[in-house]
């Protein structure tokens, strides 16, 4: 099973780095917000896979909390952009 986890986490790492590229390139703030959100998802996924790998459930609360709450940051940021940038 180990190699499965290695491949999984490897793919996720690549995904994370690609997301980072978008985060830096932008072009708009909303792109970055989306990128951050996706980045968080990748981390959750990676953590989850890591848990399976180590057969260790100690991070479960972390996942739950994160799945429920990570979007708060993005939502508030999105609202800011909505307010700040001028209407059409």
């Amino acid at each position, binding site marked *: *099973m180990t190699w*499965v*986890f290695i*491949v*999984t*986490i*490897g*793919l*996720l790492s*690549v*995904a*994370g780095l*690609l*997301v980072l*590229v*978008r985060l830096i390139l932008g072009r*708009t*703030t*909303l*792109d970055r*917000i*989306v*990128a951050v*959100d*996706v980045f968080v*998802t*990748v981390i*959750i*996924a990676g953590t*989850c*896979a890591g*848990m*399976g790998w180590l*057969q260790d*459930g100690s991070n*479960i*609360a972390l*996942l*739950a909390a994160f*799945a*429920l709450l*990570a*979007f708060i940051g*993005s*939502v508030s940021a*999105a*609202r800011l*952009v*909505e307010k*700040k*940038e*001028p*209407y*059409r």
Partner: protein
Amino acid sequence: MSLLDVFSAVCLIGGALSCLLGAIGLLSFPDVLARLQAATKPQTLGLMLILIGTAVQLDFIYASGLILVALFQMLTAPVMAQLVGRAAYRADSIRRDTLVVDELGDRIERERRDR
């Protein structure tokens, strides 16, 4: 490798691939709205697959938590998508040249003219 392991391997690798494809979409699509589609949703799928793949590998005491995580993710992801999309449209940070139809834009134009 048991059958369960194979299932879990498929889920895990599939999920990871989904995430990766989402990331590629995030890079390649033209504007926020499209990227939003490409990125957040495959991520959701990917995450769920990975959750399932992992849950199979873990004790039930933990697996139940993973199911919750999946539920939570399904609950929150669309909300985030809608808010970001709406913000993008309102902030006008979209590329109109790739929009083949824009009935929302048409209606807004109409209302503005009427006012």
